[in-house]
């Protein structure tokens, strides 16, 4: 293979690698989703409006309302300090009940309501009382990293 051909082949490979790198960096920076607790969300509300987020906390007792006709589901996610209104469309998961730990994916909107696209219920066999002083890290551990099977 001649010298100039080698050069072009090398340049081609560099170009491909660069394109892939741009794709990866761009993809990551646009699609990293932060996990926040209700108090963290309230504290940073202005920065995170309209960004994809995961909100983790407990379903506030008495806050759930579901209209089976319109599939409109509303509830409040809380931690010890703060709460956030959530709305979503679709049937609530079968074990969705008050006081249970949930992770909701979606976006926090200007009007202060979190629009959920996905609801995940933390299934544990015991009912956990609304907790007192758990750090966001502890809540994350308990909600996102289950210690039991499944």
């Amino acid at each position, binding site marked *: 293979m001649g010298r100039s051909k080698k050069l072009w082949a090398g340049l081609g490979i560099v170009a*491909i690698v660069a394109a*892939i790198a741009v794709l990866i960096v761009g993809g*990551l920076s646009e699609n990293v989703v932060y*996990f926040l607790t209700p108090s963290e969300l309230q504290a940073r509300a202005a920065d995170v409006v309209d960004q994809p987020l995961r909100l983790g906390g407990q379903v506030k007792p008495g806050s759930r309302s579901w209209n089976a006709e319109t599939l409109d589901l509303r509830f409040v996610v809380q931690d010890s300090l703060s709460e956030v209104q959530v709305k979503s469309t*679709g049937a609530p998961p*079968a*074990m969705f009940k008050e006081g249970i730990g949930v992770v909701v994916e979606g976006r926090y909107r200007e009007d202060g309501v979190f629009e959920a696209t996905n609801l995940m219920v933390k299934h544990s066999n015991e009912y956990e009382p609304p907790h007192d002083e758990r750090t966001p890290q502890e809540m994350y551990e308990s909600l*996102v990293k289950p*210690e*039991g099977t499944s």
Partner: protein
Amino acid sequence: MLNIIGSAAVTAALLGALAVAVVGVVAGFSRRPALIRAARYGTYFIFGAMTVAVAAMETALLTHDFSVEYVAKVGSRETPLYYTAISLWSSLEGSILFWGWILAGYGALVAFVNRRSLSRLVPFAEGVMGIVGIFFFGLLATAASPFGEVFPVPANGPGPNPLLQNHPLMGLHPPMLYLGYVGLAVPFSFAIGALLAGKLDEEWIRATRRWTVAPWAFLSVGILAGGWWSYEVLGWGGYWAWDPVENASFLPWLTATAFLHSVMVQERRGMLKTWNLSLIIGTFLLTLFGTFLTRSGILDSVHAFTEGVIGPLFLAFIAIVMVASLVLIAWRSDRLYAPGSLDAVVSKESSFILNNLVFVAFTFTVLLGTTFPLIVEAVNGNRVSVGPPYFNMVTVPLGLLLLFLMGVGPALPWRRTTAERIRGAFWLPTAVGSIVLVVGLLLGVRRVYPLLTFAFAGFVMTTIVEEFRKGVQARRRIAGVSSVRAFGQILTRNSRRYGGYIVHTGIVIIIVALAISGSWRFEREATLRSGEAMLLGAYGIRFDEVWGREEPQRFVVGATLTVFHEGEELGPMQPRMNYYPNSEQPIATPAVRSSLKEDLYLTLMSFDAEEGAHATVRAIVNPAVPWLWIGGMIVALGAILAVAPQRKSRRPEFVPAAAAVATEAASPKEEAVTV
């Protein structure tokens, strides 16, 4: 009793692995026949011991011997026989036992098949598999022992994780995946053996070709079966979510696929020696990493069985394997000189090198996305996740590039070619691809990626058909047989090459199905009263009733819906929810009605528990999904053909003539190297 037999068998396997690790390596260096024999019989012994251990566990499971810790953890008297038998791999300890048994089985098979050949490499390979065995059997004997004794003996157990006893595919997906994962230890062991022996020519690659293709095929089927399982059980209507554990199975598949292609460059052109060693070592490391991800509980997933000490042990083992491999490569660097070099920019080898570059980039993309949350959390404590949009955004263009290369590689000759031959080889595929593009546009397809997918698929399929046509033509001329017989003959005589093209066909079908199902799925969720119907596309779905049924191991609630297509009644469909005593959350069983065109997929989301007067149902139309499974079967078929023993020509005096004629006809005999 079974506790003792099982533990003793595991200990015996561990001792056997320790012995084979030492004897194998010493035998490799000293080349003394007695030691070589000893390593071989040691390898058989390990398999025997592990077979006893697995048999003891299966006996314990099937006889509900709850004095065995693992049975007390996953067994129950109510679980149906089938799910009891396969609960061997429904939790951590059992699945490592199964892993170890497959490893021992591959070891024994390698030893047996090569008992009279490759005596310079095989003892080393046995020794390396012994070392890998030490780790897994060691886990079984200590931190992940399934044979602990439970006292007092419980009367019953909780049964397996409900998700894992809800669909028959659980009997297929894990074994296939394990056969793939563990099987890749064989080419890895030969690669390390070649490094130890300092015998770094192409022998280890030739010796392990089948041992790479077969696990690759198992892994492919395992991954697809996992997608199918997820589709049939999880109720969200998808088959792939870029879940870390799915990624864990996909990563070694990517590098193994790259390896299958790059070894051909070494076999034919003596290039890429170090690269091939690194690829197979990397592949093996990724299988360990995948096992670590799925078995350590570091990530949130259905698969994470979570057990404290296992994680660090795995990480340590991965680190040891990585460092040892690098040291070996550095030690043998003087023998890794590859004599070949690239003759031309446009050639089969350059297209394979590009293919490898893209596969490695693909692997890196998936690996980065999978581990990024862990990295970020370790660095600044932020809790993040990386969603499917990242993976789709980066991997779809890479996948398209690979699809395109799949059409280029087979049609290019080795070394160099002329512009005229390129035109000759590519005008038809390019024309077909362009026609597909235009037809797509005329039919109103406006999305760029699906359009490109279809056009490239047309391009690739044309090159594959052309390859078959040329092969049949050449064969007819040589042997003077009919086209049909010629077709059969090229398949059996050059099964590696044409098996490879069949695998490619299956992959093209899968990619097209991915593009269609990813782009044109639509769904609707509604609450229906008895007798009420919803419309979804051409389908009408009428809710009739909710019913309940007691089964030994669970309580089932189902909804009966009558489905219509363009007004014509298709019959009832019954999505269900299953309530297991050991899970608060019901496990869904969606109802799927498949046709070659599309699936209608119904999930019961919620129901009126008091009177059964209404139910909330999610209905999804998933186009082309059945083609994923069909494509998977074609991949498996092609791979079986590619590993089947090639029929030697019975009239060897014809071979030179055949080669000469064939070279003229785009040289199928000459380039008899595919997959």
